[in-house]
């Protein structure tokens, strides 16, 4: 296979806490080392151990934009995984399972959701089959999938034998065995797999040895019993190119660090807290050469503060900001809901603070570890009173990196809360980034009208033409920050004339923001601007829809894609023009109410008539988007609900 045609998709399923995560990482590292680009995304339940989760990976010469099913291969080593995924492998693909699981009855798989059990049982019943993993394997074979049963018990015993490690420890190599089998059959040479294992477990030599042994054994077994791959995968185009492998959580933390964050507060919540924990793990850092030299300073540190709740998280971030820190907090829907009152305070008191909002499936605790784009309304309209704030949504890892920096800039320049909208899919999607993708020297750090040495006449809320008052941090001169309506010096007043002036000042500030942030950063039209079909979406669907455009193009449907980046201040004219230019506009969102479409109509008056929607909490696929769009194009259907993924 030629390098450029490489497009590999596979999944690894298994119980939560059973090493799926680690196996996925090894797989991704294998391909990065080999010179390819990757994405991997994890579907997991709100559970610590035992419930089914899986990791889906895609490998291409360029960065893959989306995962989708069916996959080329599946590593499904427990009965629940077999039964969950036996229809997810494409014809001609293969499925690696553990032969010892075959007899397991559906009824006996405790963690499997009852509705799925019922559906599967009915499915097998219809076909006159027993409700067991074995039947699933049978169906897979009937579907043209090569099923590869590994005698796991024996293999593990053999690893134990070879390495002298106790069985209990060796059994942790289960996934490595499955993975190595798969990678090898996909055409990856053993040496790359071993390298990746060594990189992954780094310092832990014993663990490396044990896993390498397991991989070797697996490959031997494949060679002996199944036959090796038809041919080996060529090295990818980026061989030797330095890459980081990062999740969305991590890239935002990296962006904030580069962006000059000095204090972050948080209260644990999925899928946000991994960002803060990662930040905390890197709170002490060396300055880059250019900075060390300029400042004559080698090291600095940021504070990451775990608070008692989200009320405290946002209030401490606000307090820190007022003191002069470049500050942020990070949360998900439930936590953000608790921050509403303080957001309103930050609007009124004009406090620069960034809120990173990692959306997940709601309402309420809903689907706490699943994808959702349901918090757009909430982000935009959070807080009582007239409640304008900057809301920016990132489409992918690279955007998230730069947006994290920009959000900090905007917060300080405009002295207002900035909501950085991201989501669970981005959070738990992992990809490679190269040096040119996240270049610190491409970023500018701005602090706006920061007054280092305010005089005694300093007025915190000075009425200015652009609506922005010079901002002095605490500790220089007596001043007042307040959530009450106030005169220029921050003293509270209920005077109707001043009230009107201050409302007008804050309004002018948003006019300034609207003017200063270029339209290009607010909305982006991808693809052929003259295409007569326009897909509209926002957030992490971006790379998925870009892939979908390619699929559609192959099918003869020419469409472009309007990505909304900033919801407030909204790029009204630009969006209206683009939409009015299209014959068919289709809104694509992962929520039920069509939140972006509503906002578009609210801001522009333009009514979108067609919708693609996914609300299952599972990653959106490029293929299902393409199919749904095609259906709408062909049938004029109003709404297509897609729901791929287990």
């Amino acid at each position, binding site marked *: 296979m030629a390098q450029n045609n490489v497009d590999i998709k596979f999944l690894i399923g298994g119980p939560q806490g059973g090493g799926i995560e680690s196996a996925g990482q090894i797989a991704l590292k294998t391909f990065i080392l080999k010179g390819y680009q990757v994405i991997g995304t994890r579907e997991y339940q709100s559970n610590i151990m035992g419930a089914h989760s899986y990791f889906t990976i895609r490998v291409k010469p360029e960065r893959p934009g989306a995962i989708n099913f069916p996959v080329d291969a599946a590593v499904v080593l427990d009965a629940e995984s077999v039964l969950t995924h036996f229809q997810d492998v494409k014809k001609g693909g293969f499925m690696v399972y553990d032969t010892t699981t075959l007899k397991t009855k559906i009824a006996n798989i405790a963690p499997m959701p009852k509705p799925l059990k019922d559906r599967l049982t009915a499915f097998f019943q219809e076909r006159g089959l027993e409700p067991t993993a074995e039947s699933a394997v049978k169906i897979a074979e009937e579907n043209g999938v090569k099923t590869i049963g590994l005698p796991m018990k024996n293999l593990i015993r053999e690893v134990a034998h070879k390495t002298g490690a106790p069985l209990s420890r060796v059994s942790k190599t289960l996934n490595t065995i499955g993975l190595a089998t798969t990678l090898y059959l996909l055409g990856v040479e053993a040496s790359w797999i071993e390298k990746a294992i060594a990189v992954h477990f780094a310092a832990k030599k014993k663990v490396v040895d044990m896993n390498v042994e397991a991989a070797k054994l697996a490959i031997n077994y494949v060679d002996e019993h199944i036959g090796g791959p038809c041919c080996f995968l060529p090295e990818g185009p980026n061989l030797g190119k330095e890459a980081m492998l990062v999740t969305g959580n991590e890239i935002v933390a990296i962006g904030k660090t580069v962006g000059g964050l000095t204090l972050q507060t948080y209260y644990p919540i999925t899928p946000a807290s991994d960002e803060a924990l990662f930040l905390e793990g890197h709170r002490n850092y060396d300055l880059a050469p250019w900075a060390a030299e300029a400042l004559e300073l080698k090291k600095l*540190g940021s504070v990451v503060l775990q608070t008692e709740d989200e009320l405290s998280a946002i209030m401490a971030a606000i307090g820190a900001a007022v003191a002069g*820190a470049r500050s942020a907090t990070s949360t998900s829907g439930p936590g953000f809901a608790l921050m509403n009152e303080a957001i309103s305070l930050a609007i009124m008191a004009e406090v620069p603070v960034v809120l990173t909002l990692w959306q997940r499936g709601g309402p309420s605790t809903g689907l706490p570890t699943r994808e959702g784009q349901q918090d757009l309304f909430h982000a935009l309209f959070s807080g009582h009173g007239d409640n304008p704030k900057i809301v920016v949504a990132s489409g992918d890892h690279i955007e998230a990196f730069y947006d994290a920096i920009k959000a900090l800039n905007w917060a300080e320049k405009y002295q207002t809360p900035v909501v950085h909208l991201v989501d669970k899919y981005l959070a738990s999607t992992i990809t490679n980034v190269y040096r040119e993708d996240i270049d610190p020297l491409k970023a500018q750090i701005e602090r706006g009208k920061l007054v280092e040495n305010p005089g005694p006449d300093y007025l915190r809320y000075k009425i200015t033409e652009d609506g922005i008052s010079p901002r002095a941090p605490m500790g220089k001169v007596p001043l007042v920050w307040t959530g009450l309506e106030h005169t220029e010096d921050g003293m509270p007043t209920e005077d109707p004339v001043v009230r009107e002036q201050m409302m007008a000042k804050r309004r002018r500030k948003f006019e300034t923001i609207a003017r200063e942030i270029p339209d290009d950063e607010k909305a982006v039209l991808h693809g052929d601007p003259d295409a007569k079909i326009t897909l509209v979406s926002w957030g992490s669907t971006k790379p998925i829809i870009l892939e979908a455009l390619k699929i559609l193009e192959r099918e003869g449907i020419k469409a472009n894609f309007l990505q909304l980046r900033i919801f407030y201040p909204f790029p009204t004219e630009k969006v209206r023009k683009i939409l009015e230019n299209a014959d068919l506009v289709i809104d694509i969102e992962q929520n039920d109410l069509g939140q972006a479409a509503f906002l578009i109509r609210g801001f522009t008056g333009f009514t979108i008539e067609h919708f693609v929607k996914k609300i299952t909490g599972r990653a959106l696929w490029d293929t299902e988007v393409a199919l749904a769009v095609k259906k709408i194009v062909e049938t004029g259907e109003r709404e297509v609900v897609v729901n791929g993924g287990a």
Partner: protein
Amino acid sequence: MARSWMDYKTGAWVQWCPGCGNYGILNALHRALAELDIDPSRLVVVTGIGCSGRSCYYTKANAMHVLHGRAIPAATGIKIANPNLTVIAEGGDGDMLGIGVEHFVSVGRRNIDITVIIHDNSVYGLTKGQAGPTLPSWWRTKALPGPNLHDNLNPLLLALASGYTFIARGYAYHVAQTKELIKKAIEHKGTSLVQILQPCPTYNNLMTKQWYEERIYYLEEEDPNWDPLVASPEDFKSKMSIILEKMIEWGDRIPLGVFYINPAKDTFEQRLEKVIPTYREYPPAARPVAANGKPLVDPWQVFADKIVKA
């Protein structure tokens, strides 16, 4: 020349009712600040919402008037961001022990070096006299449609259980004594509480000046050997039960003074310094965030652990 308490007045009209205990508290605070000669430019006063919350407008300082119940977390953020500031969080009993009790308790786990001052009038003053968290059950102050059904909290005991390392109680009209308590609280390194009994002549017609003055006494006046310092396990063993007894005393007699001082715990700032070596010199609010507009950090250096390299 040292500052006078007059230097801490802002000149704003003080909106409290005639005879309100808040006047005494404000004055005691100003006198304490003057005697400590604290530079208003380095002083931070954060207040919650309530009659008491207005204090921040009447004290020359870096003032912040936040949300009801949230003075403590805001003060926490400020102090962590700039540990070189003197930070005071003030609020009413409703603010600190009602809606804000979450933070009142949790700040104790940090022993952050801030001073918490409660203007305790046992009613929700600014919302016109509903029962506050320190109003005893079955009492019915004048604005209530019926008797209060909730028991009263004991802020001292709650502070102790929460980990405060300095706990005192004063009385609003005793300016000189209250000033001393506030001074000690500010000087204490760690989270300190000064609960100040504050008659509200407008709404609390039961816990009046007279009512208090028939009951209050000072620990150190009653017992000249009174020593609230609990610096060692031995101190703890020998003093804790009498301290607790005094903390719990409430009724015919109400003790005032410093109840408890624990000098042994690290402040949160000290803890941060231990894990962030540059913290004290370059705290979040007073450190560079850029070099000539460029980032300080090269991610390929700081996050090198994320690089995949064989």
